[in-house]
């Protein structure tokens, strides 16, 4: 049930009157303050002359789904095929390769005994991309995917490295990518947040990496741009449900009364914030309908559900979150950050790696296929990747197969992108023979971020926000667009 027509007209009327009044009087009319929160659809920064109006050029991507693999997936066990390492098994990696670079305290200063890939590799698709045998479904989408095998970062521990990827700075406090986009481009969907976050973890709970809220924080941007965390149990959005015993029609009655009284106040007092308040309460009411609609999977055919794998029915699983990401993309949500923890295999590569592959392979691949068959992949960018890779040398004791693992490795690792504006079926950049350092076309985290921004029609150097006297941007003062991956 909506506001009765006359009420709606009144509401509009009083709001527009106030707005017209102030805009008529001055370019910096009082209405502009409240408008900032009303016209979310347009994005705050779009009107800002300071950054040249957004988008800066025609975007290829309208929205992003970032499958963030917390913990650091092992690049050379998954995508970065190095058969020649077999000859070095158990032997020290030459110093000319490792250069005594910093590792985490777990392996710093210890031996660097070569550990080749854990499982077999095959070539797939027309593109002939190498994929490990534990990822049969991902192998099916390689012709839609662009692998970047020369990613590198400067952070060697989880929280700073994840923060770096998502915010461009290693310390908490800067806006995350989704917040920048919400701020800059606004939302294409008026009854769901522009920036949604979902998290999952491995079933065995082998991984201890927590999800800190600064991974989706808005930093110095207005806090309404922070990611809205959809919960893995109970109501997906905090306080979305009416209290027990309050039906939707009672709530409507209550909100109608509330709107009427607020409107009287607006007429009497003239503060445009009141108009904004009325609008936000209406939006809240709409969200109360749209969120249950979003999470109601009864309209999904069985073959689609099956594609995402058996976990798709379990709220809070990676599979469920991937399906939800597609449903959010359909509804126009700008940035969906799906984080999955379970890749930190220091001592349990032998036991956990295969399980992680199994649990994430089908859902990630299904997401790409599902978007594609709906024509959504054309303007949706899908990203898969962790905060760093894992060492080409082993952590632990080579004779104890049950406790083999790899330490964090920031110097080179692999991520993939698919969809909007990304060249499909290619591999960009290479690592050296030990998958230790980039051998060609290194891509730094800031380059990666600049490229994502570019796909969304944004010049990362111009998209800034003034805070503490400085023009801040996602890419700090670095980064250049990786042109080779653009279609």
């Amino acid at each position, binding site marked *: 049930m909506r506001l009765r027509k006359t009420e709606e007209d009144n509401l509009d009327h009083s709001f527009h009157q106030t707005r017209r009044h102030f805009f008529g009087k001055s370019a910096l009319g009082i209405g502009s303050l409240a408008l900032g929160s009303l016209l979310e659809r347009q994005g705050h920064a779009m009107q800002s002359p300071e950054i040249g109006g957004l988008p800066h050029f025609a975007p290829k991507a309208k929205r992003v789904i970032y499958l963030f693999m917390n913990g650091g997936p092992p690049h050379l066990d998954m995508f970065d095929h190095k058969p020649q390492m077999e000859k070095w098994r158990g032997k020290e990696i030459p110093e000319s390769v490792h250069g005594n670079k910093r590792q985490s305290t777990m392996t710093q200063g210890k031996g660097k005994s070569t550990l080749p890939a854990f499982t077999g590799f095959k070539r797939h698709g027309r593109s002939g991309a190498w994929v490990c045998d534990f990822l049969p479904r991902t192998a099916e989408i390689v012709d839609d995917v662009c692998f970047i095998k020369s990613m590198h970062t400067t952070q060697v521990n*989880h929280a700073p490295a994840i923060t770096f990827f998502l915010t461009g700075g290693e310390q908490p406090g800067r806006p995350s990518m989704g917040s920048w986009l919400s701020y800059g481009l606004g939302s294409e969907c008026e009854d769901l947040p522009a920036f949604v976050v979902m998290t999952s973890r491995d079933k065995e709970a082998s991984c201890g990496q927590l999800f800190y809220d600064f991974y989706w924080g808005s930093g110095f941007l207005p806090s309404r741009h922070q990611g809205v965390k959809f919960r893995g149990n109970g109501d997906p959005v905090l306080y979305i449900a009416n209290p027990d015993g309050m039906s939707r029609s009672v709530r409507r*009655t209550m909100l109608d009364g509330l709107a009427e009284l607020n409107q*009287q106040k607006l007429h009497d007092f003239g503060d445009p914030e009141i108009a904004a308040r009325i609008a936000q309460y209406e939006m*809240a009411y709409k969200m109360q309908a749209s969120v249950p609609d979003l999470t109601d999977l009864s309209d999904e055919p069985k073959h689609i559900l099956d594609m995402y794998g058996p976990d798709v029915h379990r709220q809070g699983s990676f599979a469920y979150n991937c399906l939800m990401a597609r449903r959010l993309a359909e509804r126009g949500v700008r940035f969906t950050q799906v984080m999955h923890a379970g890749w930190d295999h220091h001592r*349990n590569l032998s036991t956990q790696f295969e399980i992680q592959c199994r649990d994430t392979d089908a859902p990630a691949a299904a997401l790409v296929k599902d978007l594609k068959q709906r024509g959504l992949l054309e303007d949706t960018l899908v990203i898969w990747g962790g905060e760093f890779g894992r060492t080409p040398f082993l952590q632990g004791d080579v004779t104890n197969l049950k406790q083999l693992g790899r330490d964090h490795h920031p110097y080179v690792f692999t991520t993939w992108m698919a969809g909007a504006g990304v060249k499909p079926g290619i591999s960009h950049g290479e690592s050296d023979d030990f998958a230790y350092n980039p051998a060609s076309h290194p891509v730094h985290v800031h380059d990666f971020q600049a490229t994502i921004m570019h796909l969304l029609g944004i010049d990362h150097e111009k998209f800034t926000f003034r805070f503490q006297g*400085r023009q801040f941007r996602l890419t700090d003062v670095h980064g250049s667009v990786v042109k080779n991956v653009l279609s």
Partner: protein
Amino acid sequence: MKGRIAFPFSVITAALIAAGPSRAEPANFSREILPILSENCFHCHGQDAQARKADLRLDIEADAKKAVDGAFPIAAGKSGMSEIMKRMLSTDPDEVMPPPKSNRKVTREQISMIGRWIDAGAKWGEHWAFTRVEKPKLGGDEGGRIKEEGNEIDSFVRMKLAEKGMKPSPPASPETLIRRVTLDLTGLPPTPDEVADFTSSYRLQPSAFEALVDRLLASPRYGERWVWEWLDASRYADTNGYQGDNDRTAWPWRDWVIEAINDNMPYDKFTTWQLAGDLLPNATKEQKLATAFVRNHMINGEGGRIPEENRIEYLFDQAETVATVWLGLTMQCTRCHDHKFDPLTMKDYYGLVAYFNGTPVDGQGRGGQTAPILDMSTPAEEARSQQAQTALNQIGKNVEAFELKKFPRPAGKGLEESEAGKLPGNLTATLAKVAPVKRTVDGILEAIGYFKEKDDAYVAVLQKLLDAVRRRDTAKGSITRVMVMEDRKEGPRDTFLLMKGAYDAPTTTKVTSATPGKFSPLPAGAPRNRLGLAQWIVARDNPLTARVTVNRYWQSLFGIGLVKTAEDFGVQGERPVHMDLLDYLAADFMEHGWDVKRLLKMIVMSGTYRQSSRVNGSDTDPENRLLARGARFRQPSFMLRDQALAISGLLAEKTGGPAVKPYQPEGIWEEASFGKIKYTPGTGSDLYRRSLYTFWRRIVGPTMVFDNATRQTCAVKAGRTNTPLHALTTLNEPTFVECARVLAERLLEDAALSDDAARFDRAYSLAMARKPTAKEKETLAATLGKLRAGFMRTPDEAVKLLEVGASPRETKLNTAEHAAWTSLCLLVLNLDEVLSKE
């Protein structure tokens, strides 16, 4: 700038003429010129030697006026001869300044202004906030009249308004006034009786307002209200943050702050105790406790972290917090390089860091009670901990006995020499090699995960062990110990400049503790330790502390500071419209012994504060920076909850003590901590305490708080946004629903309220200190009628609604009626006027 471009003088002149009519007065350096230079030039021609181009500085007068290759960047008196003019006006992309690639642009008007300033002699000056605070003369010459209507503050505000041809608003109604000032000074709304008393006496005698202000300032609620911003600024929380997110017991410090605020401890003393209480002669326990301020930072317990890396990070946090809170300076960038805009160098940064580099803190340890600590334990806490340990020891023996059977091995051999030693994953390290009582929660969880569905009996035994370990950890962790400051006996550590701020990249440049060189040195006789730093911060000559502090109080009351950038008083910060007012308040604050209550009283007694906040039809000042009306803004979320509790009568007023756990949706902590940390809501009065006592878990803050600092790092300015998610919180969070239900009960049970109309009056009086208008009553009555009809049709639903919240409900009431009124009260609690301070 390299090379010269020959520009005929007439070109420049023509360009300037084209730029618009010139005003008679040459620009003021600090007000008009410096901001342009800072924004557009200093990035490459400023303080930071690393970033400096063409070896040219424009931030220092001598450099800017010194000839380079025969050309003067600024030739005083001759804009046509000034290289910077030529460069700004150039159309050659290789020559024009700022370069196109910089995304900076100087407008024609700005160039023209600089030209006039140069022609008038290019008189240099100093950034306003870096000059000593001098008390300005009162604005205007209306002395007597101002006194009657308000106070000194108004003389400044009205003069500015007159300049702009604007007039102040009329005073707010007495009802609005008492609600506004009571919310501002105590964080809670006035009661209807207080409103009635005040309005009647105020009409007879306006001095009643002063009596009201004095009463509020003396209320113990005052400290509970004003502690909030200090907790945000000092990144106070009940846990460490990061992995593990261990609890800490810093609340005695929080209670000390409340007490200090209520006692009106002078702000200079308040400062000194918190930065260096331990260094005062014969420091008392209280003075040492105050220094917990410095140690409120996060602690990183992530595996793989290097302790020294942690330690350096803590030092950075401490130095930057002090710089932001007291100096309004953004020093973070000087970790790695000299400041681009402000006269702060990397050396200044590490000089400040050095003050904190003398404690035994070594970056080790994940607990929330890492040394140095102050023991604030009670015998009861010690006994509880001892009991929990004893219980654990007993269970440990049972586990040992079970494991002896489960993992048979020859007598005298350890567990790791049995089959247990061959378990996968971390189990060898966390189970086989560790006696049961020494095992950790993580280790036991892993074991339970592994043996699930393999050996139910063993899982049951391990589960008991887990519970006992958790109970022991909780009991031990809740022995109150507060992390405080203390310097090492062997003296401070050496402090080196760190390349790019990296702990493992020290340069050879060693620094000792020092205050930023730009400002006056330490006061005579001040020691070169934290105590000296504190004395320097509160010295009369320090240009920043008082301005920054006064501005923060103004910000809390008006929603926006006199300087909007409360966190940045540097060159890039906002230059205040009401600069004289700020300086007057700052000087007056210092002259009167840093007396905070006196400052607040002066502000709220001003006519400016007491104006109506109605938006005038011809207003062109959207942010109300000129202060032609009173402030009107949505209250911070913590106050919304407190207000609802107070209106309903549920509020449990009790000062201090450990944090409490009000309602929170199930699974929030569990999801954030992967099930390791469970949230158990409190009971009884714990559910209804003021929000400041709510347990603050740093990895996931209280769910009903929005638009607030995250308490992860220092924050001195809270955001204020308006989203549907906020509406959902105040509509559906159980505290608000319960408050509505209890408020409804209050209205329905009050024998003095004979009909609905009387109840509407009462509800409005409680929530907004006024009665509803006739039109509002119509709407309320129509809405209530529909709500009644709705609940009469669905009596079961009515009962469900009334069962929200833990407090007992009055079952004598008709449930449909009670539910309808509950919904109506929830509506009232969500009115814009109730959410706002008007």
